[in-house]
Structure formats: structure tokens, C-alpha cells
């Protein structure tokens, strides 16, 4: 008898968890998939690929969109369809998806991109990306993964950090890094990122 309330609570929690998953799936299908693709493997260069992205990063970006710290007109209609309570479920969903490889557009830039990623530029003070974003570009709890990202999207973000149009980076660190990057370096490093599985 003493166990009955406990079992009831467990059952209720299981139902809630199931409901949360169902909500997440419905949100993904109705609000995210059209741009970010099936399982977050977007096929359109302007929309970021989210499959396998670090959950902490996705959650931070979604909350920054909701609070207006990060602005994006294309995201605006979808932002009206979910709330803070949905964020962790969406982040967990995308983190759990398997990333499919993409084909980089320009193989000639890969070597220069890898050199910048691994070693930075000591002349201009660009730190090596690998320091934070990790070998293989997978990121971690604190820094986003970059592997397999669309070159077009990654380049746009770097240019926006460089200009300050995107300003939701922690302590202005990415703005400081991007400000030191040349357009050629941006073009090269994003090709290398795209080539990472």
C-alpha cells in the first residue's frame, strides 16, 4: 500500500515526460524542420545545421532569441510559437540527432582553413579556434560545435560578430576574435569547418 502513491507519482512523471517529448516533436515538426531540416540537418546554406549541436549552446541561443539578445527576422514567427519552458526539450532533441556530412564548396581553401583553426594567426592575434572549439570542432559544454556547419552560415555569423551585428557572445570574446580575422581567413576556415565530419 505504501508504494501506491510512489508508483502514482512515477506514472504521472512518466506521462509528463512523454508529453514533453511529444510537445518537442510537435514543435520541431511545425516550427523548426522547414528551415533546419530533418533531424536538424539543414540543406539550405543560410539555415544552420543543428544536428548534434551542444545542447547548452542551442538552449542559450534559443533563450537569447526569446529575450531579444540575439535577433533574427527569419526566426521571429517561430519564436512566437514557443516559450522558455520548451527550450531545454528542443536543445536536447537537436543534441541527440546524428549529423550527416556535407560537401565543402572549395577544397583549395581547406589547408589554409585548417592552419587557422589549429594555429591561429600570431601576426594579427587571432587565437587558434581549436583552443575553445576543440579538436574535431565538436565543441563542449561551454563552446559550440562547428563541425559540418554550412560554410555560408558560418561565414555570415563570423562577419556579424566582426561587425558587431551579432553581439550575444559571452564577454565579447567572439567579437574580439572575428574582428581580427580577414575576409580570406573567414572564407577559408568555414570551408574547413564544413569538411569536419
Amino acid at each position, binding site marked *: 500500500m505504501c508504494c501506491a502513491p510512489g508508483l502514482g507519482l512515477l506514472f504521472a512523471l512518466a506521462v509528463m515526460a512523454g508529453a514533453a517529448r511529444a510537445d518537442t516533436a510537435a514543435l520541431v515538426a511545425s516550427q523548426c524542420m522547414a528551415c533546419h531540416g530533418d533531424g536538424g540537418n539543414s540543406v539550405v546554406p543560410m539555415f544552420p545545421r543543428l544536428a548534434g549541436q551542444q545542447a547548452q549552446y542551442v538552449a542559450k541561443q534559443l533563450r537569447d532569441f526569446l529575450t531579444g539578445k540575439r535577433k533574427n527576422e527569419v526566426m521571429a514567427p517561430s519564436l512566437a510559437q514557443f516559450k522558455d519552458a520548451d527550450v531545454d526539450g528542443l536543445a536536447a532533441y537537436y543534441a541527440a540527432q546524428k549529423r550527416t556530412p556535407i560537401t565543402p564548396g572549395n577544397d583549395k581553401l581547406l589547408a589554409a582553413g585548417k592552419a587557422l583553426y589549429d594555429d*591561429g594567426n*600570431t601576426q594579427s592575434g587571432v*587565437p*587558434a*579556434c581549436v*583552443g*575553445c572549439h576543440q579538436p574535431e570542432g565538436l565543441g563542449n559544454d561551454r*563552446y559550440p560545435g562547428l563541425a559540418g556547419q554550412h560554410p555560408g552560415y558560418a561565414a555570415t555569423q563570423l562577419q556579424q560578430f566582426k561587425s558587431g551585428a551579432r553581439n550575444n557572445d559571452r564577454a*565579447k*570574446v567572439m567579437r574580439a576574435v572575428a574582428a581580427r580575422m580577414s575576409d580570406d581567413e573567414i572564407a577559408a576556415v568555414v570551408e574547413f569547418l564544413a569538411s569536419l565530419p
Partner: protein
Amino acid sequence: MIIRRAISAACLLVWAVSASAQTPPPKAAGGDAADGAYVWNAMQGEKLVALGARGDAARGEITFEICQGCHRTHALGRPDGSYPRLAGQHITVLIKQMTDVRAGRRRNDVMLPFIDKHVASPQDIADIAAYLTKLPSPPNNGRGPGSDLARGQKIYEADCVSCHGQGGQGDAAQFYPRLNGQHYKYMLHEMIQIRNGMRGNSNPRMVEVVKTLNDADLEAAADYLSRLPTGQP
């Protein structure tokens, strides 16, 4: 007004002392010494907070991620001298330099954004220092040409050893850095910066010493230092 004039006079005096300065050393930008003349290693502000904090090396390893894009994994720096080795450095020295850079006492525009107050708290700085000081400093640091080592040893033993120690181990209690294991080109660059009044947070005693040395002297001394056994004497 009188106070302000006195401060200006004191600043001028300090500048005059660092004789060969072509550009004046930076004023502290909103830092601990923002209110007046430069006092080497004044014990105040967040440096004291960080020195008094209990540094956690495990946390420091994580916080150091943002630094290793330049200082490299295991904080070995780069043999081309663009970034110093930090592995095995004294906690006191690391805390002093980090807080000096972000207070503007040490001029370093390359590093400044990455040690900003929004990036690292005084506790974070203590954690990073606790992590770095335990890292090994292997004998693979950048070396000089090896062409004038006798001269380098003579200069080092005459002018440098009283502070930096026979083995280049520095002195944690005095905030004097460990130099063994450091990259030749980095040491040479910093010596020239100090001599030319460009580093900003130099010990006036050291400025006096390096002012008497020419470039060839400094190259020889840095070369000798770069060949001292690394690690913990």
C-alpha cells in the same frame, strides 16, 4: 587642482626614470592604480583578492580553455615567441600579470579582450594560476642561436641572478618570474619592451638594469636563459 598637479608631476617623474621610453607607458585604465603614479606591484584591488583566493586547478583547466588558442594546450606557449610559456610559472607571477594586463598596467592589446572582467573573475584568475603552476615545463622551449653563451652567462650572473636565481627559477614570494623553460624570442622581446618603457608594469629595478644593456647583450642573456634546465630547481 594642487593634487592633480602633484600627480602629473609624479607621472612625469616616473616617465623620466624610464629614460629610453619613446612612447609613455600606459596609464592604468580604470584599474587599481588609476588614481596616480605607477607603483610597482602595489598590493591592492582584485590582485589581492585573487592572491587570497583558494585556486582550484580543476576549475582552472576549464577556464584556461579560452587561453589555449594562443598559449596552446598545456600552456607551453610558442617557440616563435609570439606567446609565452605559462606552464610551471609561479602563481604569484601569473596573478600579477593577468590582473596587470586587464587593469591596463601592462600594455597588451592582444590579450586584453580574453582576460576581461566579464571573461574571468578574480577567483577564475586564481584557478587558472593554480592549474598552470602545476603543469610541467619540458625542455622543448625555443632557444637562441647559441653563438654568444659565455657573454650571456656573464651578463646573467652579474645583473639578473640576484632576482631571477641561479637556475632562472625566479622567486614566487617576490613576484619574480621563472625564466627557465621560457622561449628565447619571448624573453628577448620582453627585455626590449622593458628597456624601451613599452611594457608598462616593469619593475623599476629591472628597467635600470636592462637600460645598461645593448641588443647583443640582451640576445646573449636570453639565449643563455633559454638553455637553463627547465622545471623545478
